[in-house]
Structures are given as C-alpha cells and as structure tokens.
C-alpha cells in the first residue's frame, strides 16, 4: 500500500480521572493514526472525551495507559528536553481566543511568544516574523501593536492561529476553533485554515461537534461517545453509510440551512406577515 507517512500514532490510550466514588474513564482504549498532511476529524458531544484525547496526543496530560508515537518516537518515554524539541512541532488552537491569548502583552508579542520561548532570533527579527504571520492570517501589521481586548473574537482567533504557525508546526490540533464565533466569522476561519494547510502542508486534528465542518475539512473522521471510538474511517464513508446508531443520531440532528429537512415541512398557515 502506498500509505502516506504516519506522523502520529496512538495505541490503546486510556485516561481515568479520579474522583469520589470511583472516577471517570474519559478516554477508553482509543487508537488512531494521523498521516502527514492530512486532517483527522474528531466528532462527538460534550463529555465524549474529544478534548481529553487531543491533550493526550501531545502529552499535555499523561495517559493512564497506552502509547503515543510521533514519527516513530515513543512520546511518553521522552526526556523533558526531547519532549520540548518535539513540542515545537505541535501547536494547538483552542475554542476561546480571549482565554488562550495573553491579555497583558500586545498581539505581536503573543504571536512571537513561541519564538521567544524557543530562543529563536532577536527582538527585531521576531517582530518582523510576527508581522509576517499576522498578514498570513489576514490581519494588518498595525494589529500587532494592539492588545487582544481591542480585537474581535474572530480577529483574536486569527491571532491564535498566527501564534500556532510561528514555529512552522507539522501538526496543528484545533479544539473547536470556530464554535465561539459568529457564522460569518466561522466560515472565514475555516477557509483560512484550509488555505493555510494547502499552502504549508501541516497535519490537523480537528475537534468539533459540527459534522458539516468535519465533512468539509477532514478526510477521515473518528466518532466518539463516552470516551470510546464508536466509528472511524474515511469521512465520506462514515457519513454516507453510518454503521453505529450514535453516528446516525448525530447525523440526524444536523439541521440544514439551505433546504428544508426532509419530512419536516412546515404546513402553510394563514399569512402572518403584516399587511
């Protein structure tokens, strides 16, 4: 098989969170692969373990058991220095841009923060790179001098994406990056991410509860329910012919904007619009 190169591989990941009276298995024996340049969609409802899984993949939290390999390296066995080296290849974009940017430093400083931490370049070259990145995500140079509070939610999400791109990552983990945004801005951010991926070639793990977004973005999809993967495969196959009842329920709950939902026509009534 001419499979593209596997970038990230997770094997039987389990995460238990302790608690009074037992505890919760947030992620239950999940295995997955992400190939170079591809987008893997992870869908499921709140509490299904999507975000926990994402954090396990890049070792932001430690799994209870299971393994993660990045380009064949055992991520969980890495020494802190090596982990740090790999981490520069992994970046995250979170749901709430107001919460994920630093409010007390300027937009440009937010964007160049990963460079500063990685001791890359000097102040001036970092500033230049930040301005370049801001333009890449569709903002102007002048936005660099502003603080996050002065920007809108959509603009801040662009800043968060610029920051994530600063180290030219191979893997971008997006955790509901458009859920907090207005529909028109959601569409802007999605086309931005798709364009950037085509241009820069990074892989994406895209977590969302919006199935239409996954259909557009992700070649393969993983459907999660209560910590387990209930269905996985090429998005067109899974959505076109869902095998699991939970996947069917999710798909059946999507309300189309462009055409009436089949079997849900609203009966005509006497005119309600004023005369």
């Amino acid at each position, binding site marked *: 098989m001419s499979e593209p190169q596997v970038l990230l591989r997770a094997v039987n990941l389990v995460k238990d969170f302790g608690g009074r009276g037992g505890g919760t298995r947030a992620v239950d024996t999940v295995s997955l692969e992400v190939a170079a340049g591809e987008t893997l969609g992870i869908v499921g409802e709140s509490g299904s373990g999507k975000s926990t899984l994402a954090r396990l993949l890049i070792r932001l939290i430690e799994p209870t058991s299971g393994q993660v390999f990045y380009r064949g390296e055992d991520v969980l066995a890495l020494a802190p220095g090596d982990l740090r080296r790999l981490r520069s290849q992994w970046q995250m974009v979170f749901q709430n841009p107001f919460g994920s940017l630093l409010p007390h430093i300027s937009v440009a400083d937010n964007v160049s923060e990963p460079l500063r931490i990685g001791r890359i370049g000097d102040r001036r070259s970092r500033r230049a790179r930040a301005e370049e990145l801001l333009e890449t995500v569709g903002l102007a140079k002048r936005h660099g001098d502003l603080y996050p509070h002065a920007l809108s939610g959509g603009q801040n999400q662009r800043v968060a994406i610029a920051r994530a791109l600063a180290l030219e990552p191979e893997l971008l983990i997006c955790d509901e990056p458009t859920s907090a945004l207005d529909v*028109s801005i959601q*569409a802007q951010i999605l086309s931005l991410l798709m364009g950037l991926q085509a241009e820069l070639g990074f892989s994406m793990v895209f977590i969302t509860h919006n199935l239409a977004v996954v259909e557009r973005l992700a070649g393969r999809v993983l459907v999660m329910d209560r910590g387990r993967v209930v269905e996985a495969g090429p998005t067109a196959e899974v959505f076109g012919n869902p095998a699991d009842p939970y996947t069917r329920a999710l798909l059946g*709950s999507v309300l189309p904007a462009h055409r009436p939902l089949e079997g849900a026509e609203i009966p005509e009534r006497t005119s309600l619009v004023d005369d």
Partner: protein
Amino acid sequence: MQTQDRPLLDVRGLGVDFRTRDHERLTAVKDVSISVAAGGSLAIVGESGSGKSVSMRALLGLLPQNATVHGSATWNEGTSSTELVGLPARQFQAIRGRKIGMVFQNAMQALNPTIPLKRQLTEHLRWHSACTRAEAEKRAIRALGDVGIPEPERRIRMYPFQLSGGMRQRAMIAMALVAEPRLLIADEPTTAVDVTVQKQILDLLVDLRDRGTAVVMVTHDLGVARYLCEDVVVLYSGQVMESARLGEALDRPVHPYTKGLLGSALDLGDPSPLRPIGGNPPDLVDRPPGCAFQPRCVDDDGARCAEPQELITVGATREVRCWRSIDE
C-alpha cells in the same frame, strides 16, 4: 379565539440607545418593525451585535438603566391592547412571564443555583395565577414532564447543578411554559447544547407551536430558524435588512447580507464552496453613514450604497433594505 386583524405582538419603529461611559450614544436597535400573529413563529437572525437580544429585552422591559427605548410595541389580545414601550414595571408584571414567556441562552446563569427547581417553577405561577401551592406544584410537574424530563416528581426537588445542560435548558422552557403564555421568546436556547439535545429542544418548540403558542426564536443558526419558523427577520447593525416568509428568504435571498449568511452556513452533503462574508460586524458607535452593511458588501457600488437605505417592499410578503431590490 382566532386571529384578529391585529397581530398578537406588533412592533413599530423600535429603537434602543445606550448611554456609554464616555458619554457616547450607542444605537443598538434602529427602527425595527416586526409582528407576530397568534400561533405564528418568527425567527430573528443575525450576528452578535446585530440587536437581536437587545430588541427582545426591550420588548420585555428588561434593559438596564442606561438604555432608552423608543417606538411602539403593542400587545393585542381580544379587544384589549397594551403598549409595552414605557409600560410601568408593575404593569409589566402582568405580561412578562404570564403572557410572554422567555427562555435565555445560558440556563445555568438564568436559573438560581441556590434554589431547587420546585420553587423556581412555582414562584411565578403562584404570583401570576394565585393558585394554591399544591396546584402550582402539580402544574410544574406536568410542565417538566411535557418538556421531556423523565421522573419529573423526583427532578423537581433537585438543584440546577444536579441536572445536565440539556435538562437545565428544558427546565427553563418548562418554567416559561408553566404559566401557559401566548408567546414564547426563545433567545438562542440551543447555542450551548449538543446537537442531539438541540434537536430535542427544537422538537419541543415545534410541538408547542403546533399547539398554538406563538414563538419568536432568536438565533444565528439558519438551520435552527428553518426547522422551526415560518417567518424570518434578518437583523444587521440593529436594523432589519430583510424580512420575509422563511422559505422565501432562505431559498431566494435578496439582500446581500442574507446571501452572505447563507454562503457562510455549512450543510452536510452540500459541496458548494464556502463563501464567507469578509470583514467584521459593525461598530455600533461609529456607524457608516449609508447602508450599514456597505463596508462588507460584495455588491458595494459606492454612491448609492453610501446613502441611508430604506426598507423596500418586494412582492407580497417581503421587505428588503437595499436599493438594488427595486429591480427584483
């Protein structure tokens, strides 16, 4: 009790201004006219800052002190008619909660976390209809059952935090329905819940609508609007951009903003390319002098768009705030 000539709720030229801290005047809602017939269902759609919630809160007298409301909103029932704008707080109590029920977006914040559901569901009932404690409890339990909460007798004794998000949102709806209002205003009731729960809540509202309660649904989700409503009003920058029968507006949108919203909406199994609206929602303090949508409009042609736009009647049931629609 059939529809009279007058709609149940008739809003004419509603405007809301806020005084800001820097003594600027911020116009959040400008000349909005909508009407809801008894048993009708209206979607109010638009982005954040479009004035959706503010206009609804204005109708219910729920705006803070620094807001000024002008225009008119009449509540018509039988032969009686009440002007809601400027209605004294005491008289508002006879309408708000009783004639007009409300459901807000965030059920966790709208419910009181320190009080069990029972008191929250019966308090206003006892206030409004002066029924006995036992009768109120019976009705509250029935309302919880009606909104699909299993074991309502047990759940009514719980605190909000003991319920899941979807369950809390249903409890909120039950609270609004206990007094059997003629109109339910739902302000993004499903934005914070999962899709499967959203579907359940919408089915509940569809059922309610079919039993004759008028529904106003505030949402930014055109799929939600389409599922529930017969009519739609598209707001932008506090102004009506397009108002029409819902199918008419979404199948054949006229205003560039309505087209933009549709172009931004993703549907399953729909391969058409994403056509996002460029730019950002407007600054309400520093409004463009002409069409509010001009800075983001793909059809902007300068001079004519730089003039204030009037609502133009197109066909029998549609109004559009764009000079181009004259040709439609």
